[in-house]
């Protein structure tokens, strides 16, 4: 018998079910923050001149940032009783982020099917400006065997300096 709480979204998933979507607004400030958080300071994500030199219309969002938005859709829906086992996508079209205001990115998903082990396959949709940002974006969510493995972010200290922390 699956250890998943029968009330969990994953346990109750049915093919065709829509996930609660959302619209994110990405600003240049968000891109700078992502660059620092992820360690990706590719100038096409930060400076118009660099983006245009690369053949782009202007500063574009990191592909992995848009995938992170899709992953948030999945993890927020799945809850503590499940974990993401697989994510895949093609980065089809970058999100151009204007200097003023932001770019709306629409994130949605649908249950594609439920596997015999209780895992759920999802089709994901990320669009901006009427165009698909991610194509063939999919996720698989599996029931979490030990719910106590859910990491509580607060209260976890960083290792002492010199302990081999990544940059």
């Amino acid at each position, binding site marked *: 018998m699956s250890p998943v709480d029968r009330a969990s979204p994953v346990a109750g998933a049915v093919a065709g079910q829509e996930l609660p979507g959302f619209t994110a607004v990405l600003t240049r400030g968000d891109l700078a923050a992502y660059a620092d*958080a992820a360690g990706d300071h590719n100038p096409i994500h930060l400076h118009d001149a660099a983006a245009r030199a690369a053949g782009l219309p202007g500063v574009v969002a990191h592909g992995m940032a848009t995938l992170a938005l899709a992953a948030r859709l999945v993890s927020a829906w799945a809850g503590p009783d499940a974990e993401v086992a697989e994510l895949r996508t093609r980065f089809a079209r970058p999100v151009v982020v204007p200097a003023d205001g932001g770019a709306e990115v629409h994130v949605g998903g649908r249950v594609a099917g439920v596997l015999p082990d209780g895992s759920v396959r999802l089709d994901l949709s990320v669009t901006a400006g009427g165009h698909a940002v991610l194509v063939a974006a999919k996720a698989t969510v599996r029931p979490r065997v030990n719910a106590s493995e859910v990491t509580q972010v607060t209260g976890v200290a960083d290792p002492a300096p010199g302990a081999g922390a990544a940059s």
Partner: protein
Amino acid sequence: MPAADDRPPSAGTAVGPGTPRTVTAGMRGALLDWLSGVQGVPADPTGSLPTLPAVLALAGSAGSGGPGDLLARLIADSPGTAVVHGDQRLESARAVRPGDRLVLASTVESTRSMGASVLVAVSTAVTDPAGAPVATLRSTFVLTPGGLA
């Protein structure tokens, strides 16, 4: 990387295993804070970060064994090469936790010329220092010497 009219980098080119990297709470926290700061993104009380193994691997510098390490070696002789991220696949054996020490090793699985560009497929194994699997990545990149413009 050779010029566009030379042979593309060979399949089998590999880097790593790299120096073990420690996942810090600060690193995870920065990414979680980023998500919290983007307007419209829903909260997730579990603090899950499914993309974390890929972010760590792609951010890897020289000696890390990650895709970035491999790409840097491939384009070392061609400054100004544009790198566009094509596809990304991530399979997680388990969640990455603060304090985890991760080892990366990447290999060029295939290359294909596309006019002036080269499509490079890279696989990356993410393990703990004992070799237990944590995640597997498969990434593709389009490399264009001289940039895209």
